[in-house]
């Protein structure tokens, strides 16, 4: 059923009894052309683009619980394409362009809000690094502006300007950046994929892979064996676990990232702001809560929760940047398990096992990549070769030295 104001009005007259499920809760068939392991944003987007772009609709998305409850439902909802390196920048900009048309494409309001992403800098060296990044963006036709301290002050007068330990010197602004409603992205892709014939199978946990010699030809699940010509894995947070079922070891560690939301208040913060002298970023949701976060906790973790040192650090960063939030209250904190890769960049590639493909290693930046990741992974699954924009995201890059290390932290995942 098509969503529109008219449909809403009409349903309003009949007590909304005519709405149908947003997506079919499918039972698994015994075989598919393509199986996607995982029911998160990337997996659902992959299924959607497989159907839409490549016409492949004999697709199952297998989710061990209910869809969209992993990192796509636990992030701070920021979208942006302010990347530095040529391996990343065109990919994330493509993602941004898909965000810009997402609602009309999916017929689902994901509340993509291009309110701007402002990265503050506090030293000359940091400014120069941001300028290098902003110039790379401009070279690729991506919007980027350099603001001085006065311009930042006009935009966000409530920041700490007069008593700061590390005074704000300025910021790099991407006006097209912003936020999206994370759950709506899940439901929108699920609905659109389901409408095109994709089976979304919930409560179906993959417990192993079926093999024909070296080749992967399906999966074992808690709901029986399911065969497939092509199996794609998109289970960020659990990539190492699932890959281990196929006997693979990945250049990935699982780390917990906490996220925070305050009680809802009337509009205060107009855009996404990141603090350059501490670990803190913040925006305000349409519902009014301040959504913020900081660094990962820093140790391998499969527990979707974190500990106090990071919470204190994040709140200290918040108070250092905007001391007016002191009396606002933290409402909830939670954790998501991140696929932290060894150079801070993702992997969209075939694996050494024929028939098995991998979408992983998104660190804590996977949400904004959802559309492009799905698009490029669908391309890989459909064609067996990397999409041009995801060519750099190869597994072998660690061996060859073609690293995509935006932060320069090297093989220390908890620093990316």
């Amino acid at each position, binding site marked *: 059923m098509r*969503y529109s*104001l008219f449909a*809403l009005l009409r349903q309003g007259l009949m007590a909304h009894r005519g*709405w149908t499920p947003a997506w079919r*809760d499918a039972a698994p068939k015994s075989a598919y052309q393509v199986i996607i392991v995982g029911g998160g944003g990337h997996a659902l987007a992959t299924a959607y683009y497989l159907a839409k772009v490549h016409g492949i609709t004999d697709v199952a998305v297998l989710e061990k619980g209910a869809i969209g409850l992993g990192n796509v*439902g636990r992030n701070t909802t920021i979208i942006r394409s302010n990347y530095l390196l*040529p391996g990343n*920048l065109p990919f994330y900009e493509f993602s941004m362009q898909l965000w*810009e048309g997402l*609602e*009309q494409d999916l017929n689902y*309001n994901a*509340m993509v*809000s*291009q309110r701007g992403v402002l990265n503050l800098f506090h030293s000359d*060296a940091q400014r*120069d*690094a941001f*300028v290098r990044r902003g*110039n*790379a963006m*401009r*070279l*690729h036709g991506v919007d980027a*502006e*350099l603001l001085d301290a006065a311009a930042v002050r006009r935009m966000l*007068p409530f920041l700490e300007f007069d*008593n*700061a*330990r*590390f005074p704000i010197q300025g910021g790099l602004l991407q006006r097209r950046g912003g936020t999206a409603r994370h759950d709506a992205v899940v439901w929108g892709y699920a609905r659109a994929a389901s409408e095109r014939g994709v089976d979304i199978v919930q409560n179906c946990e993959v417990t192993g892979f079926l093999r024909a010699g070296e080749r992967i030809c399906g999966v074992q699940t808690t709901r029986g064996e399911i065969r497939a010509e092509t199996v794609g894995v998109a289970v960020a947070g659990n990539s190492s676990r699932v890959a281990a079922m196929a006997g693979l070891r990945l250049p990935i560690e699982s780390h917990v990232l906490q996220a925070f939301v305050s*009680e809802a*208040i*009337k*509009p*205060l913060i107009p855009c996404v702001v990141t603090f350059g*002298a*501490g670990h803190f970023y913040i925006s305000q949701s349409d519902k009014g809560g301040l959504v913020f976060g900081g660094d990962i906790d820093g140790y391998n973790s499969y527990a979707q*929760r974190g*500990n*106090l040192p990071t919470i204190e650090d994040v709140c*200290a*960063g*918040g*108070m*250092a940047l905007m001391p*007016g*939030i*002191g*009396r*606002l*209250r*933290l409402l*909830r904190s939670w954790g998501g398990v991140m696929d932290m890769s060894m150079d801070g960049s993702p992997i969209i590639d075939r694996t050494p096992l024929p028939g098995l493909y991998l979408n992983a290693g998104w660190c804590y930046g996977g949400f904004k990549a959802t559309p492009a990741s799905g698009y490029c992974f669908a391309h890989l699954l459909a064609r067996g070769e990397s999409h041009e924009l995801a060519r750099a995201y190869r597994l072998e890059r660690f061996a*060859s030295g073609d*690293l995509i*290390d935006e*932060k*320069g932290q*090297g093989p220390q995942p908890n620093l990316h």
Partner: protein
Amino acid sequence: MSVNRLEGEGAIERERTLSFKFDGRRYSAHPGDTLASALLAAGVSLVGRSFKYHRPRGILTAGSEEPNALVELRSGARREPNTRATMIELFDGLQACSQNAWPSRAFDLGAVNSALSRLFVAGFYYKTFMWPAAWWEKVYEPAIRRVAGLGRASAESDPDCYEKVHAFCDVLVIGSGPAGLAAALTAARAGARIIVCEEDFLPGGRLNGDRHEIDGTPGSNWARTAVAELRALPQVQFMTRTTVFGAYDGETYGAIERVSDHLAVPLAHQPRQRFWKIVARRTVLASGALERTVVFGGNDRPGVMLAAAVRTYVNRFRVTPGRRVALFTTGDDGWKTAFDLLAAQVEVPLIIDARTQVSAALLQRARGHDVQVILGGQVLSTAGSRALRRIEVLDRGGRVRRVRVDALSVAGGWSPNIALATHLGMRPRWSETINAHLSADLPASLCVVGAAAGEFSLAGALRSGAAAGREAACSVGFAAPLPSWRTDDELIDSTPLWFVPGSRGKAFVDYQHDVTAEDVALAVREGYRSAEHLKRYTTLGMGTDQGKTVQLNGHALLAARTGREVAEVGTIAARPPYTPVAIGALAARERGRNFRPYRFTPSHRWAEARGAVFVDAGQWRRAQWFPLPGETDWRSTVAREVNTVRAAVGVCDVSTLGKIDVQGHDAASFLERIYANSVSTVPVGRVRYGLMLRADGMVLDDGTVARLAEGHYLLSTSTAHLGQVMRHLTYAQQVLWPQLDVQLTNVTEQWAQYAIAGPLARTLLEQVCADALALSNADLPHMACAPLRWLGQRARVFRISFCGELGYELAVPARCAEPTVRALMQAGESLGVTPYGTEALGVMRIEKGHVAGAEINGTTTAQDLGLGRLVSQRKEFIGRVLAGRAALSAPDRPSLVGLKPLDPQARLTAGAHLLGMGAPARLQNDQGFVSSSAFSPTLGRWIGLGFLSRARERLGERIRAYDPLRNLDVPVEVVQPVFYDPEGLRVKG
């Protein structure tokens, strides 16, 4: 004015009167009141408006689970939005305002939303506002944002301060109701170190709200005596106004003590709140239970209140929510409310019990008071515009009757308050016995007691508390006798009624977010059928109360709609914090200038006295330049400093550079494994440049390696990388090669170090230490080092130079810093010495082509930095193997070059990208970037360092430095990255 204040003794001080204002109107109250009890006493039942439909809302509870009565407390910079009236301890002069209502809470224009409620169902926004696309940011979203949110934040800086405290104890008792007090008494009497945290300002929990007797005395008196006993014990810390908000790994609990929230402003030198991090060997969770409501039409109307809350208001605050109060209950417990009201001379016209069978004792007692009882009855709806006027009741026979009341107390059953027992990921289990979730899979250190464990009787609470207290004390080595207390028998039977099927009007499953039973039905219809999807689609349970009073009803409704049992639907994990926590409290002292410590070099005061301008270098404050009187432009100051060093002599404080002392028989062999170039061959008394790589082959840091004695080296590191280098070295020492005899000590702060550089550097130094040390080229050549006595202390001189002039670095014990730098400056006065700062140092290092942080950025190899020739091919060292990977030696990989604008006047900027001349500005044509740039006073032009593809072939080529962010596009020439004295003769002078 106190129309609803009852006679008799409660926990308020009647002899004192406080005055407060709500929405600008003045009221009075007593010490011991909360804002909620004071408003009820004054007959105010309408407190604010709801989130979406702007429905009138009153007070539902008497505790921190309150979803409705949220107000803006205080004003100006101290304004606190969304503050629960039920938790605000009344103080004289208190001011509060209602929220989400305009122009007033009684007449709120937003209530028009109620009329549009057919449109504003759960998730309506996902289905519309998509056309035209550009309208989302411009029209729809701003409108939604304006109406969303509840209170208003003060954008001003929080004027109060917060403290952070660490505490350790044997037993942490959370909650001071009967179970908590029993546990604390038992364990404390045995001698264990105890911390008791009570959220309320009055300890005792339900003992204050209910009329119990323990050992023949009223429960509230018993609690007072127990607390007095605990407070008198030295090993007990008893904290009221303290909420344990989270359980964390390692038996660590976070708690917030509201030190001054019950005062108008904090006392001098007092924090507003104190953040406790409590490490407890054992924890007893005695957090009680939370009463649920029932989902029926108009269950949100002001005047509808949970039954236990009514008892609390009546017994503790001596306030009644109304003068004619009906009861709607699903269990025996609710009847207590009716009897307490009757005892307080409040009219109770009607008891509606959803059960068809009720104990004869209750019926008889009700009959004795002439109260009409409807068994098997249900409340279908409520009426009243801004306050409850009437309820509609359906009896077993299907008859609907209307009853005039001004308050309705609702007893929907109790849910154990187990949030803290699930923070560490333990999934609760459903209990068929109590029809609620109980904690499960608890760690050995945590024990749940009393109502929190489903023990709903007072006797059970005391018994389980005492047993847990004894067990906890025993487990930490104390023998504790088990006390016992005498209490009355209680009836605690209950049968859940989650929702009233034939409800008329909106029946709420989330008060704060205006989620109705219809919304749950819609979500189910649309396929959002897991508890998580329901929550996210309808926002059920996402308010500031996390759905404590009604979320389970929503899940029961979901279960019914999807043909499942409540147990199958599962539950939503409670997320910390248990109740919302001020962000300022979690940050505590780390704000403003105290966000991070300042690190000052030992001669910081001298630099200040010289008028230095400082810059942040990590946590360090370093002198950036030293303006002379009359110098207004920093560029001219820096130019003067550079020119003076190049022509005469300058002194620079380089104390922030890392200094690591390495000693041991295997020191040389250890360092060979660390550095990419050979360092074991450095003779004693000499210094060598050293380059260390990470395991992945990228350059980690560069610095100097001085050999002070046979098995004794001193390494220098860059200021920024010291921590990383120290971690790297200790890793190599302790993890990789523990068999080596080598000791590492970070001596950075023990030494102050000054660079003396310039053609007259030797002359200057000779004036101060000629008698201590021979400084001639023969005695102390370039890259030599020597000890000397200086001001009676052991000191060191290194003949090294970063700026490319004849240079020395004098290292002295940190306590001699000030006299040292003063002596140097005095000696140099006749030579025209200048102090110089980091900016001049930076200019001179670019002139010399030395790499620094902008080049050693974690993605560059030795080869990229033009240092490939240093890398030894004859030994093993960390990073050797991976530095050899194919892509890291590819010819098109950018490497270090010098860059010079063709126009000598043109400015070159760091961050510009390098493009071929004439190539369109596109990412594909990007060939590198400018990493550092400066105006060189020596050359009289801008110069820079950068990284460029195929750099070696391109010397002399003209390219573009493209900086669109700054509107610059500068033609530059590619040159060798050494602009000054390329032969390196001056350092040997």
